[in-house]
Structure formats: structure tokens, C-alpha cells
């Protein structure tokens, strides 16, 4: 069925009534790689109401469902780019000030971004977008879906993490003193958030006392009214600490409600990031991690997940490969030590997200193939806190499904079909 026919079918379906549900869709006959569970040869994925309704070998396909034949192909979950600049206009990459954790990347996203169809055609259905790569604490990152409709920007998670960095050079180099300064600045920001919390608590207590002290004594029934208080000696009204939006956000990090995402590449900087976790008992996610393989044990011991970005593809960000001693086997080293690993493309341009599969392929030089695929699907979703929605072909999750005309880790095999939230977002036209 050609694309025009598809659109017409969808239109007809929608025209059937405002409340009409979209037709269920069944992708049949392909090798279904669920990622969370087993791989099913000649399996079926049934999609209904934007969700995965069923996955298996003997799935009952309801009447009237649209059937798509995926024989000879592979069906996988939509891919996730764990570090992307999709939807971000170029000026949003610049940093406001060094410490601004209250900034939110969703405020800067452009729903009319142009690169979406291209990225979809490479099987990427969700992206973790984080602005401000060089601000020390640059603000909240978000997880978004890749939309096929201009103007529609589906935000899956508005605040995925607060992003910071230690040791990422602004120019071509950064001095060791500066790198240490990064760490101490972040630490001080966290300490000062704590101070703010304490100051707020102190104010609460003082205000309670003040209220009690200045309250007029209550008249009791049947008794004569009590004498008025003598004048003078009135306690001072305590001053409430001014609003500190930065501290508010960091308190959420300190209370483990939101993870702290720290980009660090060199061993010393990674160790400092781990020190932050030790001191403040927060939820740390390491980003970048060029040399993380060298201290994999330390990372594993603390159960810190790592988003490796970029993955030895200099075509996306040549300068970033010089931030540390980059190695193609980094992701595998971490995985072998027991670290949960996701892969991000980490490119400077929005369309770089299309290189997710290529990144997974490079990681698969060393990682077992299923782990490499997991690193761009379920592991990424788990690390980013959206695993109940995406990351695997599991009943009840969003119907973000990709059909590849071959092995998912072989970039020579093109993507044939992409579903996002159960709607066909991309369909490959046969070469004319």
C-alpha cells in the first residue's frame, strides 16, 4: 500500500467520527526483537490506541485491523538517542550563565524543526535533549518523541535530569585548575541549596514562634478577659529568605527526585562526579564518559549509569573526541563491569540523531549484539526514567515500533517503517 493510500485510509478512519478510534495495526511475520523479553521469529506486534496491545507468536489479530507484512525483516522498538540536539535551534546551544539549573530545555524547543523526517527515517523515535553543554549546571533536560507533524512536539518527560559538566572545555583546551573549579562550583551550588533549605526551615520555626508570641490571648468562656500585654518588647518579625529558583531545582536533585546528569570525560573529572554522588547521596548519571572504561569498577560499585556519547563517530563531533582519551571499546568495558550503559550520538547538529544505529553498530564490535541494541532502547529508557512508556516491545507501552529490512545493527539495511504512538510516522518509498 503506498503512502498516499495510507494517508487516505487514515483520513477515512478519522472521518468516521470525532470519537472513532484509529484502526488497529498488526505487523506480522518479522523477527520481533522485544529487547525486554525474548526474540520471536515470525512474530506479530499488535498496535491499538497508540499502545502495544500484544506481542507474540500467536496473536489474535482483530477484524478490520490493518496488516503489514514484515516477513524477512526485523521488528524492534523505536530507537532512542540518549544525547541529542533535536528540536533545538542553534542559539539554544549557547550557555546563559555558568550556574543556571532552573533553565528548562523545553522552553527553548522549536516544534517546527526541519530535521524530523530525516531522523525518523533512521528509526529514531525518541530523543533526550539537553541544552547548554558548557554551562556548569545548565538546566533541565527533557525526553521528547520525534514527531512526524510540524508544530506538534510530544514531550514525554519535561524534566529528565539536571545537566552539568566537569572539565568540558569551552575552547580547545581547559586547564586542570578550571576543571577543579567546575567541580567545586557545582559542589558549592549543591551546598548552598542545602543552606537555603536549612534557612527556610529556620524561618518556619522562627515564624511559628513569632506567631505564638504575638498572638492575642484568647478569651475563655465564663472567665473575665485576660489583661492586655504590656507595650514594648515586641519580637521582630522574621524575614523569609527570598526565592531561589536555582536552589529549588537543586533541592529536587538532593532529595533524589531528579537525577543529576554530569558530563565528564577524563578520569579525574569522572571521579569528582562520583564524589558528588558520595557526598550528597544523589542520583548521578554520567554523560560522555570517554575514559569511563578505565574506572568502570568505581562506577559499577555505585550503581551509576553511563550515557556514552559520542561513540567514536567523529563525523558528528570531531572536537568532542579529544575531550578525553577516546576508545571504541569504552561502552563494552563498562558493560562488562556491570555498568548500565546507554549510547547517545552527542552531535552538534539536530540531524546527527540519525546516527543512533551507526553508534550501536560501533559498540557491537565489542558488546554482544543484544546489549548493543539494548543500549539504544531499553537501557536508555531506564536511565532516563521513561521505561514505562518506551524502550521495548512490551504490552502496554507506547507503540513506537521500527521495521528494518535486515539486521538492526547493520546500517546497510534501511528502515522500512516507523510507528510513533501507533501512527505511521515514516514509510520508505521504493526507489524509482
Amino acid at each position, binding site marked *: 500500500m503506498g503512502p498516499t493510500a495510507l494517508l487516505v485510509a487514515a483520513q477515512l478512519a478519522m472521518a468516521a467520527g470525532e470519537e472513532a478510534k484509529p484502526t488497529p495495526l498488526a505487523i506480522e511475520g518479522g523477527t520481533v526483537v522485544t529487547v525486554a523479553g525474548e526474540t520471536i521469529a515470525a512474530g506479530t506486534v499488535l498496535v491499538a490506541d497508540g499502545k502495544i496491545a500484544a506481542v507474540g507468536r500467536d496473536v489474535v489479530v482483530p477484524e478490520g485491523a490493518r496488516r503489514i507484512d514484515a516477513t524477512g525483516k526485523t521488528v524492534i522498538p523505536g530507537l532512542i538517542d540518549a544525547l541529542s540536539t533535536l528540536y533545538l535551534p542553534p542559539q539554544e546551544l549557547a550557555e546563559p550563565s555558568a550556574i543556571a539549573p532552573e533553565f528548562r530545555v523545553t522552553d527553548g524547543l522549536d516544534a517546527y524543526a526541519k530535521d524530523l523526517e530525516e531522523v525518523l527515517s533512521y528509526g529514531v523515535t525518541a530523543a533526550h535533549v539537553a541544552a547548554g553543554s558548557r554551562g556548569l549546571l545548565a538546566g533541565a533536560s527533557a525526553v521528547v518523541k520525534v514527531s512526524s507533524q510540524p508544530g506538534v512536539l510530544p514531550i514525554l518527560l519535561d524534566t529528565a535530569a539536571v545537566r552539568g559538566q566537569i572539565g568540558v572545555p569551552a575552547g580547545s583546551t581547559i586547564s586542570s585548575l578550571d576543571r577543579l573549579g567546575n567541580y567545586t562550583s557545582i559542589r558549592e551550588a549543591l551546598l548552598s541549596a542545602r543552606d537555603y533549605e536549612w534557612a527556610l526551615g529556620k524561618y518556619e520555626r522562627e515564624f511559628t514562634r513569632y506567631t505564638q508570641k504575638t498572638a492575642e490571648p484568647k478569651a475563655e468562656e465564663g472567665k473575665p478577659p485576660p489583661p492586655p500585654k504590656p507595650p514594648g518588647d515586641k519580637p521582630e518579625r522574621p524575614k523569609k529568605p527570598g526565592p531561589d529558583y536555582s536552589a529549588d531545582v537543586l533541592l529536587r536533585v538532593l532529595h533524589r527526585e531528579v537525577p543529576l546528569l554530569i558530563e565528564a570525560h577524563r578520569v579525574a573529572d569522572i571521579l569528582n562526579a562520583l564524589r558528588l554522588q558520595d557526598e550528597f547521596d544523589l542520583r548521578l548519571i554520567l554523560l560522555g564518559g570517554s575514559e569511563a572504561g578505565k574506572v568502570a569498577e568505581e562506577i559499577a560499585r555505585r550503581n551509576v549509569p553511563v550515557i556514552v556519547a559520542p561513540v567514536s563517530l567523529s563525523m558528528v563531533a*570531531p572536537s568532542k573526541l579529544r575531550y578525553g582519551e577516546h576508545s571504541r571499546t569504552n561502552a563494552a568495558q563498562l558493560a562488562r563491569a556491570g555498568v548500565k550503559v546507554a549510547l547517545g550520538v552527542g552531535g552538534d547538529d539536530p540531524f546527527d540523531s540519525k546516527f543512533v544505529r*551507526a553508534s550501536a553498530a560501533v559498540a557491537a564490535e565489542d558488546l554482544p*549484539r543484544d546489549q548493543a541494541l539494548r543500549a539504544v532502547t531499553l537501557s536508555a529508557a531506564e536511565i532516563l526514567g521513561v521505561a514505562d512508556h518506551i524502550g521495548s516491545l512490551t504490552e502496554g507501552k507506547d507503540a513506537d515500533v521500527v521495521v528494518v529490512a535486515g539486521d538492526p545493527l*547493520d546500517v*546497510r539495511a534501511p528502515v522500512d517503517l516507523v510507528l510513533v504512538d501507533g501512527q505511521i510516522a515514516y514509510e520508505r518509498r521504493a526507489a524509482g
Partner: protein
Amino acid sequence: MSTRWLAAGTLALLGPVALGAGLLVRGGTVWTGTGEALEGGAVLIRDGKVAAVGRDVTAPQGVRTIDVTGKHVCPGFVDPHSSLGLPTWEMDETVEAVAAEMPVDAAVWMDRPEVRDAVSSGVTTLVLAPGGANLLVGPCPALKLGPSPVLKAEAAIKVTVGPSALLWDRKPTSLPALLDMLRGALSDTEGPVGRLVAGGAIAQVACDGLADAERALGLIDGLHLKAALLLGGAPSRAVDLLAGRDLPVVLPSLALTPRDKFLVGPGQLAGRGVKVAFASFAPATQEADLRTSAALAVGAGMSPAAALRALTLGGAEAGGVADRVGSLEIGKDGDLVVAAREPLDLSGAIELVVVDGEIIYERVPQ
């Protein structure tokens, strides 16, 4: 010059294993670069040259044999345009617009990290060129990433037709004058440029965009240059312009052409019979990105055969060294790559790289 290279090469590389008698790589699928793949094939290298290729190759006495059953063997990749080892400040000698006596290799620092990384990339030959701020610069050598680094000292000259060669306070400041100067320098058979061209150097003509490509072709045709075109701008827009020509067309690594959405350009060009090659323009991208580019191009519709050819014989033609490298044929240099899976399947690591019959890279199993 060659002495310095030898010393530097030995320092930088991973200690080549000297195999005087020869090397036999057998048991895998051999992609010779001239036709189909030979399953269960073998390649015999003696004295640095390919001595035999086929299914029934016996190993003479004293030859080391490597069994690569289940793996894939292909010619070493050829990068026709790279500035590997040139630090950015050494990329452009801008004082003279036409600089035909600039020994490019004098600026190369062989122990830079990107050079060490390159040996594992599968690239065994590269043409070393500077940046594009000169109209014409050379001679550019063709180098091997192996123990005898100089393949051809005066392999190419680099010509730039486009605004990047126009500097503010140096003649020329305009494209018409640029073309005049180039025509003058290239036709002067007594001058340094003319002598290089007469000596067989290939003119690698770089253009910034489609508009410049027309001008570049005019220059190449008008002067009957032995040339290769380094195409800037979106390849898919240049298909009609370039089809049907016997002119190697070099495309930069795919991420450097973001305007060609869906990366369809290389496949479209190859489909119309254009001889395509990929170049890294290192350090803009890594040598390893050549293989990535070829694989992604296949995903976007390029024929797998054309993609592999682009990395090997295509690169050799664009570098003017196809008589020596680019395919596994008797008499050519013994440069090959062993990959865990098919050569363009990126999920298979490159496990062995051989240059002139010597193992220069062997992947340590993890």
C-alpha cells in the same frame, strides 16, 4: 625525506611484525575489489606484493599463515584526501596563492594521536594534502600507514576553485581572477606546476559548492587535466552534471554534507556510472569514518559493490595510485584488511590490517 619518514613511521606505528618470507591469509571470504567475493579464498603476499589470490593457494615454505575462517578479507582502504597528522596551524601556507613547491610532508607530526588511531581504521593508503586556502598547492604525497611510508612522493596537486581560496589581502580576491591564475599556472609547462602535472601528478580539484563544480569542470576540460573532483555541496544535486564522465569524484565523509538529506547522493552518482570515492579530509573527520560513510550510503541506496569500490579502487583512482593499490591483484601492493563480518557491516570490528605484507595492526581480543 624518506629517512625521516621511516624513523617517524617506526615510532608511531604499533611495531610492525617483519615477515620476510611472506604472509598467507586464508579461509575467509575474499573481496578482491575486481569482481565477486571468493568464499574460502586466500591471499598470498610475498616481498610486499600480492603473489596469488584464489581458492587454491598453497603456502610456500616459511610463510606465516593466518586462518581467517568465518571472516572477511578486502583490499586496504584508500583515502584520497586527508590532512592526517597536519596540525591545524600547518594546514595552509597562505602567503602565496599558488604554492607548487611546498613539501606537505614537512609539516606532518606522525606521533599525533589521530595517526595512531588511523591504523585500526582499515585505511592503508592516503594522499596527504593541506587545506583549501591556496589556489594550488603541492606536491601532495601518497603515503602508506606502514613501514615504507612513501608510496608516491608527487602523487597529486590540490587545486581549489571556490571562495575559500579567496583571501582578503592577497591576489586573487575574485573567482574570475582565480580561474585566470590557475589556467596560467597549469598551462605553464616550464613552471613548477606544469612539471608536476607532466610528471603524472593528479590534479585534485576542490570546489565549495555546485556553482563552483561547473567552473572546476570547465577548467579540467579546458586543460585536459588528469584530475579528480573533490565535490563540495550536496552530491545529489550534481548528478546530472557529473554523469557520464570518466572523472573520479571524491565525496567528503557523509556528515560533512548535511544538506544531502537521507545521504542518497553517493548512491545516485554511482547509479549513473560516476566513479565515486570517499575522503576523510582528516582531521575534519576520522579515517574510520570512511567505512562508516560507505555503510550509511548503502543504507541510503548505494549498491554495496559501488560502496566497497569507493573505499578501495575508487580512492586509488582519485589519488592517482590505482596501479599500486586499491584491489587484491597479483603484482599490486599487499595491503589488506580482515574484518569480523562483511567489510561494510559496521558491527563487525576490523581485526587485522596488513600493509606491504606486514601486519601493522592486530586487534586484541577483549
